[in-house]
């Protein structure tokens, strides 16, 4: 059932509203009062005109007070209602954004990697689009139904058959909420896909700008985004047409109801049939029509809201799915703290495979004693980076365990550890490490306890960066102006600032000039804790106590340097 799956998508987004129930209630009260005010205004005006035309009597001072009061009240109520409901929606959106970030933080990078451009579309655009759902749906539907019930009750007192026409009309109008719902949903879904494709395309082009410019791809990318925009426009046009069609049909139904009410009440007023009993004074006729109109208009508004939800289903589903993403690493029930003292690292029968590929590691074991410096070798693509990623617990192995080992022999699986404790003990320097927008100081202090400027300056000295950069210098996104060697030095300084007990290094020395390579190797050699370096550089490996092979048999460890 399609409508059911759609309502499920939105229902999944309702729990964030729970803390906002006061606001919802307030918004409902204001909305209902405002709608009733407007209906009363219309009815009072029509009533006075009807009486003036038929009986030639002007309304009394009470009428004037009521009408002017309602005009003023209505302005204030409209403003307040919109203010309350929007403020509430924006609060909910802010919460959703953070809930989505938390979900991504648990699940990125996944084994099957998702494009950050797509993820960003969900977190920004898709969530923004839900503003309509949170600001205009629930309280407003309630207010509309209340108004309809009130006007129906009044009409049935005045003229039961008019109320019957209203009821039937409202039921027909209500069915229009489902007209072409499936088509609207599919269009919304395709639009959403175009949006995230476009976002992915733009992020790719910006991220690979040097390649794009060097290979002259700008005209092609511009043409592609332009074609994508044209496709999105065509979809938007079809969506607009569909919603316009439904709106127009609804108006047609509304018109038919108005005609029906006029006809019924005219009959009751004895206008259309000679000699029939007069059950409604002609002077009340305009008021009754205004009342019926106000009631039906409320139902029209409500169904219009429902119709406008259909294209949003795809986005709502994506947001809901994003929030429910499964974490890539398990969260321990009772996280263990990490005792002080040196730590070793142990891989015990570890297996791992990326989705849709041959297993990268099969029952692979290795043991690093506390304080030992070990090299990790293997051909390009053989899984060195995977070993390092498992040691930093970016992922959990599919079988086996990765453990930290204390000097006295006690071993603690990474999976049992409190995350903060793990991050405090293990640091990583790798080839894909990201330097973030901000100053050098900001970057060195990311995820690190408080450090004095003197400490940080000493670190810059130690990686011989102090001559070309200072703590207050801006790095720009991904360190745009730095060379590979400069980036590597800053990443090393950032890892050391954390004072880790285990240092993991992945292919950092490879692209460095001999001076930088020697410096990095010196700094690592002087590091007092345990070190695991993935590298194929003989110069780097020569300084290590032992070298293990990631591709070889589990026990194929050899002495290096010989």
């Amino acid at each position: 059932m399609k409508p059911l799956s759609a309502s499920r998508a939105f229902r999944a987004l309702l729990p964030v509203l729970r803390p906002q129930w006061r606001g919802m209630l307030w918004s409902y009260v204001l909305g209902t009062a405002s709608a009733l005010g407007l209906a009363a205004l219309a009815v009072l005006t029509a009533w006075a005109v009807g009486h003036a035309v038929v009986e030639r009597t002007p309304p009394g001072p009470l009428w004037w007070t009521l009408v002017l009061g309602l005009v003023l009240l209505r302005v204030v109520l409209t403003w307040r209602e919109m203010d309350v409901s929007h403020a509430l929606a924006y609060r909910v959106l802010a919460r959703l954004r953070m809930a989505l970030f938390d979900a991504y933080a648990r699940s990125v990078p996944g084994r099957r990697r998702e494009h950050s451009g797509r993820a960003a579309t969900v977190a920004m655009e898709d969530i923004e689009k839900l503003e309509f759902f949170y600001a205009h749906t629930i309280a407003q539907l309630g207010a509309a139904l209340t108004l309809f019930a009130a006007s129906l009750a009044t009409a049935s007192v005045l003229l039961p058959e008019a109320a019957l026409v209203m009821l039937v009309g409202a039921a027909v109008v209500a069915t229009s909420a489902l007209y072409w719902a499936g088509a609207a949903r599919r269009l919304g879904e395709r639009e959403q896909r175009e949006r995230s494709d476009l976002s992915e395309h733009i992020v790719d082009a910006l991220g690979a700008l040097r390649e794009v410019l060097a290979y002259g791809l700008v005209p092609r990318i511009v043409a592609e985004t332009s074609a994508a925009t044209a496709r999105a426009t065509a979809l938007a046009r079809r969506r607009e047409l569909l919603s316009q069609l439904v709106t127009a049909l609804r108006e047609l139904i509304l018109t038919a109801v108005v005609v029906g009410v006029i006809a019924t009440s005219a009959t009751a007023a004895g206008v259309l049939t000679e000699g029939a009993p007069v059950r409604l004074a002609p002077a009340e006729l305009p008021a009754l029509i205004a009342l019926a109109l106000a009631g039906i208009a409320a139902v029209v508004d409500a169904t219009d809201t429902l119709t406008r939800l259909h294209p949003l289903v795809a986005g709502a589903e994506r947001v809901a799915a994003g929030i429910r993403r499964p974490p890539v690493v398990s969260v321990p029930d009772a996280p263990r703290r990490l005792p002080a003292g040196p730590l070793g690292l142990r891989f015990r029968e570890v297996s791992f495979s990326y989705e849709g590929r041959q297993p990268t590691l099969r029952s692979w074991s290795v043991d690093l004693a506390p304080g030992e410096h070990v090299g990790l070798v293997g051909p390009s693509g053989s899984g060195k980076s995977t070993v390092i990623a498992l040691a930093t617990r970016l992922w959990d192995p599919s079988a086996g365990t990765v453990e930290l080992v204390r000097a006295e022999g006690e071993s603690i699986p990474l999976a049992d550890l409190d995350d903060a404790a793990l991050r405090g003990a293990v640091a990583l320097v790798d080839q894909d490490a990201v330097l973030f927008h901000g100053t050098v100081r900001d970057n060195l202090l990311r995820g690190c306890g408080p450090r004095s400027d003197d400490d940080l300056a000493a670190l810059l000295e130690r990686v011989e960066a102090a001559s070309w950069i200072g703590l207050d210098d801006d790095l720009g996104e991904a360190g745009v102006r730095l060379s590979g060697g400069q980036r590597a030095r800053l990443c090393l300084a950032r890892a050391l600032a954390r004072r880790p007990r285990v240092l993991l290094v992945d292919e950092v020395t490879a692209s460095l000039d001999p001076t930088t390579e020697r410096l990095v190797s010196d700094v690592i050699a002087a590091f007092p804790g345990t070190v695991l370096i993935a590298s194929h550089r003989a110069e780097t490996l020569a300084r290590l106590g032992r070298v293990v092979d990631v591709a070889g048999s589990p026990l194929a460890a050899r002495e290096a340097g010989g």
Partner: protein
Amino acid sequence: MMIVPLLWREAARFPAALARSVALLVLVFLSHVGQAVAIAWSMSAVLHGQARDVFVALSLILGIALLRLVLSLAQASAAAHLGGRVRQAVRRRAMRAALVPARLHDTAARDGSMRAGLGDGVDGIDAYVSKYVPAIVQLLLTCPIVVIALVALSPWAGACVAAGIVLALAGPLAWKRMMARRGLDHWDSYEALSADLLESLRGMATLRTLGDVSGTRERLDDRSEALRRATERVMRGSLGETAVTDAAVQGGAVAAAALAIAHAVTGQAPAVEAYLILLLSSEAFRPVRDLSRHWHAGFLGLTAIPGLQRIGAFTEQRDDADPVGPARTDAAPAAATIPPDPGNGPATDDPCADTLEVTGLSFRYPDAPEDVIHDLDLTARRGALTAIVGASGAGKSTLFDLLLGFLTPRAGSIELDRRPLRTRDIAVVSQRPVLFAGTIRDNLTVAGATAEADLAAACRAAGVLDEIRRFPRGFDTEVTEAGTSLSGGQRQRLALARALLARRPVLLVDEPTSALDADRSADVIETLHRVARDRIVIMISHRSETLTEVPHVLSLDAGHLHRSAP
């Protein structure tokens, strides 16, 4: 009524679409007026007990409603067309203005804010252009007609309605300036959040290993709250407009009703006129109410406009503008004589060139105290590999960017066979090559041959063919964002294969073997030696083992090149 001149200009670029949209809107409106007249007639017929008139009037009401259904569909289509055309034009210009070399060295540039501007920002203007602009034109055309009709019925009613309309339209202008300021704040926080969010999504692995997820969460939460506050402020300002409009509409309607009552009571007019006054005055406000609705739907989108303007989305460029060309012209005025063919496509004309000559080249970054490259001379010839060595930060990458035309030299010239070097003469393998999301094949064929045999040959030469063949889907294996699903070494060799396929006379390679083991590294160097026989190849390298057979090794030091012992 808020006028954004930039968007009006954009809409006016498509006069036919705009005119169609407005004309249909006017027709839709006239159908509403017609219906109002029919309703007034039917009510007065009911009052006077004219049964036949009642039936005629009621069928007229239904007929007009059917006609409007058709008209409103045509109008919706025309409006969407107009909005789409404008969106497409603005995005094309914004994309072209965003993909420029200046961005490569800009420490203030954030990909996430650019993404927000190019995607969401451009989409945001649609509502204003497709709905609001035609609605204003329609309002200016039709409201006077209705007011005149009302004046004919009752001068006072006409005056009241006119006053209401003017108040509704002009009232919000009082706080236009404040709205503009708040809009600016809103978009700034939207961009800032978007930038931080994209950066943290891209760097999530680093954030997790740094244990900075919670710190980043706090930062993003601050940004998100700032955005929420800014959105609320814009919304409150915009609701002011709604409230004023509402007050004017209701006030005007009540005033008109009072006058209709006065007419009826004093017996100046028959019933039908009283009803007409009432219904017409309500219709007169319909465009104002529509305008308010469209404003509410589009006001957040408008906040992106100053940001888009900053990018250059509203500045008309030449359609075939070469994004790399202008940067080159200062250094080499002769470049102006080159046909403005963008650096796209394979340089099929003449893949062979003999000499690349750099003379007196100097460059410094805008805020740097001294030159990175100073009075540098370099001659590289076809036939043998040229290697450049130098300490980290010595300016090797800057030199490559100067050759590529991504930076404009302060002085000096770069010539290929005595004509200025162009970007499209060069194939490049950068130190950290980036691959696009897509298949391996998509990545290889960006700038050159697409035949299977050529791909295989290039990949064999780059030493990556065996590994590609080992993937279950071969060349059609999907590559994730930035190529992160491949190892560093695989990325490097694919980038080399891509450069070989581009068949350009100059090949620049930056550390081509850094992520490779000794055997593969030797293969790649051998390939480069072979390629150097018919192309000019310049390689940046630190590996002494890669330099043993290279005849010309130059060392970059303090912005100068010297011949160095191999």
